């Protein structure tokens, strides 16, 4: 069987039945389409055979969105080519790519293969996992550390080729299809009717609002309402100047004070100089990196972390006016001193290449938590990633940080708090060591989820809901929003090929816990 047809199905190897969530599932078949037409063919084939369908990118997600539940896996692995480079009507550079292209491959392609202006082009969205695919990034509307400046991936698309669960191919240029108060027109003349004024109710998943582009509505739909078949990426020129600074503190409160005072510096200057990243690391996260650096080759290029630092704030800035950026940094340094920091307790990088080293810190913490998790799971097979991916209004960050710390202490649980403080997205990861601690961890995460929704925050802000967090919306979101999501999925996936409703609201006692 060397011949290749549109809907060539192969037995699914076990490697394609799991992802970074450490969940595993099973599937009978897998298909590797190479273009949207072949992909649509695979979907129609799944419908004919009655197979459940799971869309897969690089399986780097951490909530199990790519883990199959029987049936057929559609892998975008071979849809990994750059397609076309052009300038839009405003002269902005655009690269059209296939969804299976990784962020790493995109970066490599941009650094060599393009007719570029003098400083080179880049694609701002930057989830820290460079082997993730762009299609996967759209599926969870990836927001990396620099989303403080650049927002989610969806906002950087000019247009999108969307493959629906019914096997249709939609072309969605930005601006063509928009929501009003009562819904949104769809390609082909039909309409998605809804109340576009409902509050988010804990999740941005398929959350309409008047004026929202259909393209942005689909960003973050987690492969449950179709998937990206081709993406046109809006590129930007590399900034003339870029800085990365890590500020270390001997007191956690100093770090939070400093971050709050930096908040006042957030806005862009007229020349576009801006803070792009504002990250926080707590004591345990720093300890984890300290002990992991000796074992993990990649982390060895981090500078020494041997001082008794208890918290850190990491910022990145970029812009065109170098002296202006330096003035901003001098201002930051004053705020740092005022927050009790010592000048020598800083790491500073003044170029993109150099600040890349510090990004290892951001990437290292979740990596090392996963390593710890794997180690614990050898003793405790029922252990799953026990983490909250909450977004709270940034002014509440300090209160939440304190709540996490106090609750973990009271429950005697080991945990890590780090993440995008600037946008109120603090990741909290727990590492339970036995069955009893797993139970208590879940109770805590449930309590925090309820608290977050009560404060108008989000409970699956960045990493998606996937199979790991199904049930969360049903339990903590508003009933009206759940009904709305359910009705959207019924319209967008009438044959229920992708199983969105069951995944988002699994039967109790399943894996549908936080």
């Amino acid at each position, binding site marked *: 069987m060397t011949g290749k047809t549109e809907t060539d199905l*192969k037995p699914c190897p076990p*490697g394609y039945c799991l992802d970074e969530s450490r969940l595993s599932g099973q599937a009978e078949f897998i298909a590797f389409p190479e273009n949207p037409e072949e992909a649509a063919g695979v979907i129609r084939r799944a419908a004919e055979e009655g197979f459940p369908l799971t869309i897969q990118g690089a399986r780097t997600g951490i909530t199990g969105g790519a883990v199959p539940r029987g049936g057929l896996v559609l892998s975008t692995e071979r849809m990994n080519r750059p397609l076309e480079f052009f300038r839009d009507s405003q002269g902005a550079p655009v690269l059209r790519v296939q969804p299976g292209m990784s962020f790493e491959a995109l970066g490599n392609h941009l650094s060599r293969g393009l007719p570029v202006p003098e400083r080179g082009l880049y694609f701002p969205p930057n989830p820290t996992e460079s082997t993730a695919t762009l299609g996967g990034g759209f599926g969870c509307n990836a927001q990396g550390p620099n989303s403080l400046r650049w927002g989610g991936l969806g906002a950087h698309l000019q247009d999108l080729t969307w493959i629906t669960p019914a096997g249709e191919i939609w072309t969605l240029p930005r601006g063509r299809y928009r929501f009003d108060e009562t819904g949104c027109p769809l390609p082909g003349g039909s309409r998605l009717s809804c109340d576009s004024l409902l509050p988010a109710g804990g999740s941005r998943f398929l959350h309409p609002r008047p004026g929202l582009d259909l393209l942005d509505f689909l960003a973050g739909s987690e492969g449950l309402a179709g998937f990206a078949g081709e993406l046109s990426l809006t590129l930007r020129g590399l900034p003339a100047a870029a800085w990365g600074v890590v500020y270390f503190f001997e007191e956690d409160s100093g770090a939070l004070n400093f971050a709050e005072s930096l908040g006042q510096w957030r806005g862009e200057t007229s020349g576009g100089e801006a803070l792009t990243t504002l990250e926080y690391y707590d004591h345990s996260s720093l300890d984890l990196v300290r002990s992991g650096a000796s074992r993990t*080759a990649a982390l060895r290029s981090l500078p020494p972390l041997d001082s008794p630092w208890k918290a850190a704030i990491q910022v990145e800035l970029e812009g065109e006016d170098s002296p202006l950026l330096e003035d901003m940094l001098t201002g930051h340094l004053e705020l740092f001193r005022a927050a009790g920091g010592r000048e020598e307790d800083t790491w500073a990088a003044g170029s993109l290449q150099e600040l890349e080293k510090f990004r290892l810190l951001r990437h290292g913490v979740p990596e090392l938590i996963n390593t710890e998790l794997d180690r614990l799971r050898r003793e405790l097979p029922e252990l799953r990633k026990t983490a909250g991916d909450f977004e709270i209004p940034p002014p509440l960050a300090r209160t939440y940080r304190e709540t996490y710390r106090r609750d973990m202490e009271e429950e005697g649980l080991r945990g890590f708090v780090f993440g995008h403080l600037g946008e109120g997205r603090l990741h909290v990861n727990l590492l339970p060591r036995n069955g009893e601690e797993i139970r208590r961890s879940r109770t805590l995460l449930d309590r925090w989820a309820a608290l977050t929704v009560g404060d108008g925050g989000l409970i699956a802000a960045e990493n998606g809901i996937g199979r790991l967090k199904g049930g969360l919306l049903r339990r903590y979101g508003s009933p009206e929003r759940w009904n709305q999501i359910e009705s959207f999925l019924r319209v967008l996936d009438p044959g229920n090929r992708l199983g969105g409703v069951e995944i988002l609201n699994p039967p109790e006692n399943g894996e549908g816990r936080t």
Partner: protein
Amino acid sequence: MIPYTSSGAERLILAGLQPGPEGVHPISLEIAGVARRLAGEGGFRTAGVFIAGELTPAARRQLENCGLAEVRLYLNPAFHPFVPEQQAPALLHCVGELRPEILLLGATPEGRSLAPLAAVSLETGITADCTALALNAGGLLVQTRPAFGGGLMAEILTPQARPQMATLRYGIFPHRAAGEGGSTRLVPADPGPLPPAKTQAEALTAPAAGEEAPVVLALGGGVRAREDIEFFQNLSRVLGAELMSSRSLVERGWFPQSRQIGLSGRCVAPELLITLGIAGSVQFMAGIQGARRICALNTDPAAPILRIADIPLICDLYEAAARLCP
């Protein structure tokens, strides 16, 4: 400084040979092989120079059979452990006596330290880490090495200065057996009194005597997750292969640098090299020139490795691996 003019009548290639954990270091036999090949092509005489603390019976046997016309032996306890300033006078003495047109040394840490010291005294240049050597029509040594991080190859000449000096990348050039005739003359030589040592060296550990694996399985950027490495470890056991990787997986922190193949890692020369998900950067290719046969598997038909492989396969590495190691 030694006044230096090589006379056209006595054109000679001098092979710098160094001791190894057992007998001579294997690079020495590669160098002797290259020297003999070039001598045959260009009508040169050949000689070797062996600088060591002692001559073990194994080293004697290897030197007698290395195929060079003669080997000058500089033996002195002061030459072990290796200190470049101590050995340089011996090398320079030999060069002064034999006036070679061409001087080849191993691109081992020892050779790469000794060569520049000698070159400064001789006012000549060196091409480091050569991966190919040939003579051009004018009889000059064409020294080929990877350039600029391994993205390109450069051909380098030493038009005027003599000797033309090159260090040879280990593991790339074939061992050319010269038979067991023992035809090489071993000639003891003495550089005269050595300068007082400025540093003291003390050998702490010998390197593990490296057993070259007959089959090497190399993984590249096509491997998707760190967790998969365990699977490939099993696969390497099934195939009886040593598991190694390209630079990309070392950079991701999934493999230690000691397992990296390539210009900045190790050179391998197995009977069979199996590459999975390796594109084949020049920097990687620099490390596999000694492989007898290459079986390469990649999903990208344009991957450079597929051009040099004996068995180039376009296939998903995970699917193929799953069949090999169910």
